[in-house]
């Protein structure tokens, strides 16, 4: 059973159900793998060995007692460090929260626990999810398992790298502008941003409240769908949670059929600035879907070009408000409390010491965009652009069922390449941001390796609000057809990591 770490969640579940292995064995195999490769990858900020083994033992006991268990019971998972887990250190990648142990579980975490999912630990991320590379983490950069000199994407680079390094078969990410989908694309894994409000934000350390969406990450589409079903659904503790049944994502992933589905290729998301190898794999995938019976047309979304500027007004504005709570009074870091300094001085010293450069940049930008005299020109205008982008989607969905594009303009770039050029870094999220602004569902699925660098390319699918199942329908059809060509999912082509003890 040395290869337990290579199995999908579905396969692990079958092995446990048939008694060939236990949840404890599976958890231990993954903990061993983390011990062997995470020194190089640095996907985890905290590994909860004791807690994970205890959760696994509890699932095994329930199984032995004949209790009815869900499909993911006993399967390990890597949790992005932006979600609270009671008693387990949660930092959101920031020094200001170093050592903080939340006194409660996020709703997503509560649901994972209720489903018997075994949480291995917390994964690295850009500080407060601000970034596209994990280079903004206060605890060091995560390395892309496909090429350790490259970034794994961000902000959820730790979660995607954990999957690609076979440290966990499942992971949770959060997507505010692409933080699930872009790392998925860069690591050859599946990343799904559910409809905004489809998954609960309770216990998610807020970046931009009108955009933040937790979602599933996995190496296969069906595994992602099963995880989606576990975490999604109405939560009275989140005032923007949608009170409707969860879309039939698992059924759609099993159906894997696009015959008659109308697919729109977004004209504006391609061309200049897009890497040739990314475009080549994308267009091949579109052709493949056509062969599978989908009807493909080109669609124009003229306002998408303004999504990036609008996003970098809306996000910093919301972030600067949300991050005001890090005031050194109730939890987290406190600096300069010498008995003489005022509360305000302590607050300013703490925020100076506790926040990294990108967080400061965005807080300042948000503070500027919301100041009187600038509000209408910046924040107000960005909100209008947001309306126009949502209207572009509405018009497009009158013609087609889903929209598609590359998930990112390029493949994973080298560590350090864009670290001092915020605008080049922001452009990573060109394709993913429109869906956050409009709140619809979107996902990235692996569609091959770019010729120039041999690195994974992501195929981006965007579906209307609460039609998340369409993502899985397209993703699983594509995955099955590509696996036929390749003799397995894309991840089977990933290079072996050197194992150190």
């Amino acid at each position, binding site marked *: 059973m040395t290869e337990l770490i290579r199995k999908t969640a579905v396969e692990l579940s079958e092995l446990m159900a048939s008694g060939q292995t236990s949840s404890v064995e599976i958890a231990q195999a993954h903990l061993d793998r983390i011990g062997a490769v995470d020194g190089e990858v640095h996907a985890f900020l905290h590994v909860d060995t004791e807690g994970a083994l205890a959760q696994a033992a509890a699932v095994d006991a329930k199984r032995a007692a004949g209790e009815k268990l869900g499909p993911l019971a006993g399967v390990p998972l890597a949790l992005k460090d932006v979600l609270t887990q009671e008693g387990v250190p949660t930092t959101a990648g920031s020094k200001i929260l170093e050592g*903080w*142990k*939340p*006194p*409660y579980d996020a709703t997503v975490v509560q649901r994972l626990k209720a489903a018997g999912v075994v949480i291995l630990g917390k994964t690295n991320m850009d500080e407060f999810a601000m970034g596209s590379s994990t280079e903004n983490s206060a605890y060091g950069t995560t390395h892309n398992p496909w090429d350790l000199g490259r970034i794994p994407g961000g902000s959820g680079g730790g979660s995607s790298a954990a999957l690609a390094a076979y440290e966990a078969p499942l992971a949770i990410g959060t997507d505010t502008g692409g933080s699930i989908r872009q790392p998925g694309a860069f690591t050859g894994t599946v990343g799904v941003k559910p409809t905004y*409000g489809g998954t609960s934000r309770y216990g998610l350390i807020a970046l931009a409240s*009108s*955009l933040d969406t937790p979602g599933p990450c996995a190496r296969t589409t069906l595994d992602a769908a099963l995880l989606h079903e576990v975490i999604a659904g109405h939560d009275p503790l989140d*005032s*923007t949670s949608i009170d409707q049944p969860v879309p039939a994502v698992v059924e759609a992933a099993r159906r894997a059929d696009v015959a008659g589905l109308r697919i729109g290729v977004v004209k504006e998301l391609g061309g200049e600035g897009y890497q040739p190898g990314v475009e080549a794999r994308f267009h091949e995938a579109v052709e493949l879907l056509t062969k599978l019976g989908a009807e493909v047309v080109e669609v124009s979304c003229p*306002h998408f070009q*303004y999504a990036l*500027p609008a996003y*970098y*007004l809306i996000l910093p504005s919301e972030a600067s408000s949300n991050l005001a709570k890090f*005031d*050194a*009074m*109730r*939890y*987290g*870091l*406190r600096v300069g*409390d010498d008995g003489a*300094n*005022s*509360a*305000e*001085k302590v607050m*300013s*010293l703490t*925020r*100076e010491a506790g*926040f990294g*450069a990108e967080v*400061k*940049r965005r*807080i*300042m*930008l948000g*503070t*500027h*965009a919301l*100041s009187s005299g600038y509000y209408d*020109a*910046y924040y107000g*205008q*960005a*909100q*209008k*652009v*947001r*309306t126009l982008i*949502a209207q572009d989607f509405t018009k497009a969905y009158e013609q087609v069922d889903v929209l598609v594009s590359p998930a990112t303009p390029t493949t994973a770039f080298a560590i350090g390449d864009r670290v001092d050029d*915020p*605008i080049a870094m922001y452009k990573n999220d060109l394709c993913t941001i429109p869906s956050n*602004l409009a*709140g*619809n569902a979107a996902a990235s699925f692996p569609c091959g390796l770019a010729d120039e660098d041999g690195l994974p390319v992501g195929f981006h699918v965007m579906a209307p*609000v609460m039609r998340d199942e369409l993502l899985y329908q397209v993703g699983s059809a594509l995955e099955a057809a590509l696996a036929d060509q390749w003799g397995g999912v894309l991840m089977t082509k990933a290079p072996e990591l050197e194992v150190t003890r």
Partner: protein
Amino acid sequence: MPSITREEVAHLARLARIELTDDELDHLAPQLDQIIGLVGQVSEVAADDIPPTSHALPLTNVMREDVNVPCLTPEQALSGAPAAEEQRFRVPRILDEEA
């Protein structure tokens, strides 16, 4: 002419309660100027008659029944406090010296 000056950035830092160093101000001011150039593109869009969207979904206020539900204990609530005293958060003085 930059869209934001070093002095304006220093002012924003005070508003945002971040005690920036001189080096940081030197570094941040030109970066913010560039970013403001990028985000300023939103003004190219003719949107006078377009309603703003603050949120992707229509929002209605959500109420719950007015009944007691479990909440954090004082010990849990104070568990992450930088300083606590007599079951309260201890904070630095909030008034100025001269007050």
